[in-house]
């Protein structure tokens, strides 16, 4: 018996941003298997990078992702700086760390909002997005921009933290810590949230490791792995923080990992501000990079991000390889759907915080009905909310 294939995507199936297609094979309401298809957004960035100088590539890499650009530029800059044997000033490393954690907070807040929207919990969506503005204001104060901050240089950072910006940041962090405490309470106690997330989209620790999952997706399956702790960079070696894990292996745990990570990020930033070293924020670096190769890893908001740079002695890289965390989490995602209801699809997809550069239509295939049909993500979301309302 062949099962009914249901295509989901290529427009973003969860966060309404980017394109991936999922074909779901269903037996009535149950998902039997799923096949993902990327390729709707392949922009050829690695190819482009080979035709640009190391300095130009910083701005290209900034644009790999709209909301985790800091993770990509730190990663790229570190690889090039390793090849150049440049010692980046401590103050710059601390500013990079602060910006990376602000980015994690805004990313997790954005994610919390869209995940709430997928549950039909619009109030939570509106509140979290309102409070996300607190972070975006801080980011703008420091960098002049809300997204794609362009704060990193090869050899340091572009802008310093002024005493006023630090003062404002501390005020904002106090506010955020308070709000995050409230949202964590909501996520751990609210019936709507628990009904839609507990035991939904299970990923066993064994599967998570075998399928090479990364980031909050991995940590929500109880595996304590975080690049900031395991392979520390920037100022993380000197920064005390806890790697958050939960054992639930479901969407609820992925939610709680992120809530707690926001609090950890706030602690990291406060610690960095308290111990911020003085001195320069950048050093000059040459245009040409000596031949060699370097690998750099960064814990992006969605997990391990890896850049590999091969230099041939010229001003352009011979190869820049980028592996963003979503590609690593796509395979684990596919196992999470098995035996779940069609109504759980939006939240399971949202659970990994996908950033495909994102799927709207979904194909569903049911063998018993020999039927094939498509839904937009909005149709599926509404149907899911209705389906759960009756239960």
């Amino acid at each position, binding site marked *: 018996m062949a099962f009914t294939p249901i295509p989901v995507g290529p427009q973003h199936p969860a966060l309404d941003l980017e394109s991936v297609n999922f074909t779901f094979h269903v037996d009535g309401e149950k998902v039997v298997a799923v096949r993902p298809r990327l390729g709707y957004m392949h922009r050829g960035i690695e190819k482009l990078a080979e035709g640009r100088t190391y300095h130009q590539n910083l701005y290209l890499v900034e644009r790999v992702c709209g909301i985790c650009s800091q993770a990509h530029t730190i990663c790229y800059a570190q690889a090039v700086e390793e090849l150049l044997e440049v010692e980046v000033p401590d103050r710059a490393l601390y500013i990079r760390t602060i910006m990376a954690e602000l980015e994690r907070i805004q990313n997790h807040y954005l994610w919390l909002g869209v995940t709430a929207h997928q549950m039909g919990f619009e109030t939570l969506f509106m509140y979290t997005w309102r409070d996300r503005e607190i972070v975006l204001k801080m980011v703008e104060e420091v960098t002049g921009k809300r997204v794609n901050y362009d704060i990193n240089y090869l050899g340091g950072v572009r802008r310093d933290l002024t005493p006023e910006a630090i003062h404002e940041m501390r005020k904002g962090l106090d506010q955020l810590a308070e709000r995050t405490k409230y949202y964590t309470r909501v996520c751990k106690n609210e019936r709507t949230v628990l009904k839609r997330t507990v035991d939904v989209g299970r990923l066993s620790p064994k599967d998570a490791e075998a399928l090479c999952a990364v980031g909050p997706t991995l940590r929500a399956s109880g595996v304590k792995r975080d690049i900031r702790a395991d*392979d520390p960079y920037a100022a993380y070696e000197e920064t005390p923080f806890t790697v958050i894990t939960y054992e639930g292996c479901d969407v609820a745990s992925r939610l709680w990992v992120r809530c707690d990570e926001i609090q950890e990020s706030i602690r990291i930033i406060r610690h960095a501000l308290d111990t911020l070293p003085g001195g320069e924020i950048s050093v000059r670096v040459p245009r040409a990079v000596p031949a060699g190769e370097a690998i750099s890893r960064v814990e992006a908001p969605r997990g391990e991000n890896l850049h590999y740079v091969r230099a041939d002695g010229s001003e352009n890289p011979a190869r820049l390889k980028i592996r963003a965390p979503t590609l690593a989490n796509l395979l684990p995602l596919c196992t999470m759907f098995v035996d779940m209801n069609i109504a759980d699809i939006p939240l399971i997809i949202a659970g990994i915080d996908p950033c495909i550069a994102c799927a709207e239509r979904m194909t569903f295939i049911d063998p018993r009905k020999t039927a094939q049909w498509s839904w937009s993500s909005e149709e599926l979301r509404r149907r899911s909310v209705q389906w759960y309302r009756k239960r």
Partner: protein
Amino acid sequence: MTADEAWRGAGLEERATAIKVQSRRRVFVDLAPVDFKAVVAWLVTERGFTHVATVTGIDVGSEIEVIYHLAHGALVLSLRVAVSKEEPTLPSIVDLVPGATFYEREVHDLFGVAFEGNPDLSPLVLPDDWPSEIHPLRREWPADRIHRRLEGT
């Protein structure tokens, strides 16, 4: 043996053609295609290198280098094998590390390297109607040539 030294041992050192310890956390190992899979199997089963961070392809002229980035704690162990452009095939490691599935497909799309044993090498990042002779990250396909070929001029 500390975690950073987890790669050391006969299973790897006796088969490697070159080992470069770039830093405590970054090690590069050159391997012949025939030995490569046995080394991966040894690392996975004996030394706990279960995380394949990604697979990188690089066009180095007549050959394509394929680099497997295995991670273990702070260490990134990069295993490098070179295959000829004429017959770029390698054994797939998905039976050892299922998480490498998409990385192999990506290298297959962009460089035309076939991974024997990977059950599905259909396009992952390229469109369905992409011409099969264009491997976009190979040197002989600069962006303007790809553009001309796709435009049919």
